[in-house]
């Protein structure tokens, strides 16, 4: 269902006029209120008056995660703290977390975008949403929560963890929509199986999954095991949280970016050059309605491409393809660039392989070694050692063929690769460089 027909199906020309107007207003505000942006503009001899068209956005320098860290915690806020009603933070795996703020209007905008997203993913008033995203500083849980209430659906704020209790709730409350990370969705199906509950007998119709990159094969796996239609949702706290872009369940082919609030660009991560539609690079966002924490040309480190083709669902907003990796996940193994998502694609191409894998990088003397741990599920297993060894070799060969990098494949017992809570750990880099 399209929740906001006016904005979501607006003719491009009208939409672009609104985008430009909102962009100019945002530039004026950050220039006036955020010393960081004013300084950047001044260093590059730009004033807000120079931004006359959407093309002019390219002249403004990028904002990076390091910039946000340098201004920790509240230095990037564009309103006085009196007007900030909510603070979220993303956990920093290295260094300080990134802190973001919301005004009351921002919270409302976010709820509206999440309501749009849930509707695009198949939810409606009357649905019961089992929200297994974590609640807390992480934006996932509360993002879905407010969106669900805005939509008028019933939300179960179950959050992450205590999986067996979640299965009981799923059985007893009969939720129809599942929201979670895709790896947690698969974990739910495994635990359900263990306790003798079949997703076939549950009432789920749609699942809306995000907060980590996942492949088409993983979508097939989730849809098959959970008996639902699975769509991808995208967002990051620096931009607003989940609800920046959503796949429509009609097409399931790329995520519509809510362009009346966010301007997407794809750049070459090395040169900063803006890439044409269809080319793969780093995704960059400019927010054009946010009050407390606007970002200008923020480098997300997510790898994707943009698709301007019209969509069967009727939305006119541009689509970003599924995120295929992170610029900072990129591993350089003996000089070859490797994204974990590429390894995942290779594994998922193979019928008998489960989507549970982990990459371990070591340095042996001066040589990098890549080991791919693959869990042996029932489809991969054989009572014959020779067959299992053949399968190991086949996986290694496919990785070599597709990525040009040699990997040692090691079969491991199920559930050796931790994934019970939130995001699965896909890469362990033991190199001390």
């Amino acid at each position, binding site marked *: 269902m399209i929740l906001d027909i006016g904005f979501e199906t607006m003719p491009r020309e009208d939409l672009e006029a609104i985008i430009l107007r909102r962009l100019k207003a945002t530039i004026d505000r950050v220039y006036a209120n955020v010393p960081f942006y004013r300084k950047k503009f001044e260093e590059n001899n730009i004033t807000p008056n120079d931004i006359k068209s959407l093309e002019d956005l390219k002249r403004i320098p990028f904002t990076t995660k390091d910039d946000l860290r340098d201004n920790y915690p509240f230095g990037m806020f564009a309103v006085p703290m009196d007007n900030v009603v909510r603070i979220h933070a993303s956990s920093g795996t290295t260094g300080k977390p990134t802190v973001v703020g919301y005004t009351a209007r921002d919270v409302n905008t976010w709820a509206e975008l999440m309501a749009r997203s849930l509707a695009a993913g198949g939810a409606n008033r009357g649905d019961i949403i089992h929200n297994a995203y974590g609640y807390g500083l992480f934006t996932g849980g509360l993002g879905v929560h407010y969106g669900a209430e805005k939509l008028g659906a019933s939300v179960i704020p179950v959050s992450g963890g205590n999986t067996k209790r979640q299965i009981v709730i799923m059985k007893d409350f009969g939720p129809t929509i599942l929201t979670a990370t895709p790896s947690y969705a698969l974990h739910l199906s495994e635990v359900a199986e263990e306790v003798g509950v079949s997703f076939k007998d549950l009432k789920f119709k749609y699942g809306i999954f995000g907060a980590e990159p996942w492949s088409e094969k993983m979508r097939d796996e989730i849809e098959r095991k959970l008996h639902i239609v699975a769509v991808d949702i995208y967002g990051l706290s620096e931009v607003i949280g989940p609800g920046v872009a959503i796949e429509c369940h009609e097409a399931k082919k790329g995520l519509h970016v809510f362009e009346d609030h966010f301007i997407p660009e794809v750049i070459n991560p090395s040169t900063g050059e803006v890439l044409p539609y269809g080319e793969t690079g780093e995704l960059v966002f400019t927010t054009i309605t946010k009050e407390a924490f606007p970002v200008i040309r923020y480098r997300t480190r997510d790898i994707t491409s943009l698709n301007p083709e019209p969509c069967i669902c009727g939305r006119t907003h541009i689509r970003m393809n599924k995120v295929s990796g992170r610029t900072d996940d990129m591993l350089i193994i003996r000089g070859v660039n490797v994204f974990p998502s590429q390894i995942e694609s290779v594994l998922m191409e193979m019928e008998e392989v489960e989507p549970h894998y982990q990459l371990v990088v070591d340095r042996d003397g001066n040589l990098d070694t890549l080991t791919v741990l693959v869990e*042996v599920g*029932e489809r991969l297993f*054989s*009572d014959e*050692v020779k067959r*299992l060894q053949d399968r190991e070799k086949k996986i290694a060969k496919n990785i070599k063929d597709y990525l040009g990098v040699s990997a040692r494949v090691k079969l*491991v*017992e*199920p559930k*050796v690769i931790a994934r019970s809570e939130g995001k699965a750990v896909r890469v362990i880099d033991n190199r001390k460089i």
Partner: protein
Amino acid sequence: MRAEQISVFLENKAGRLAEVTGILSDAKVNIRALALADTSDFGVLRLIVDSNEKAVEALKNRGFTVGRTDVLAVEVEDRPGGLHRILDMLNEADINVEYMYAFVQHSGKNAVMIFRFDNIDEAVKVLEKNNVKVINGSEVYTL
């Protein structure tokens, strides 16, 4: 005619085999025959037990990957050349033995061996034609 063997995927780590025998013991499953085939990284444990249902359920509950395979329990004369005679007739008939292992218990005077074939039906025919006794599955579990 056929017996069902269960097989378990194990990482080559200290204590994994004992973990499996412990789980089976807790589930009151009696192991009739057992063979471990391993590489430097992993192993496949093959088992003939008195209750496949109980064994598979207990192992799966503990997160192990378990497979089931049809095998033959064959009586082998307990004298020099007893096994050779059987391998010879199978070879003659072009039937490939994937692997085999010995059963603890005897059947009367004869030893019992578990055979895994690619083509189990052909194997049964050849063995019966040569008057080699293949023990029924139901008997094997309680031998």
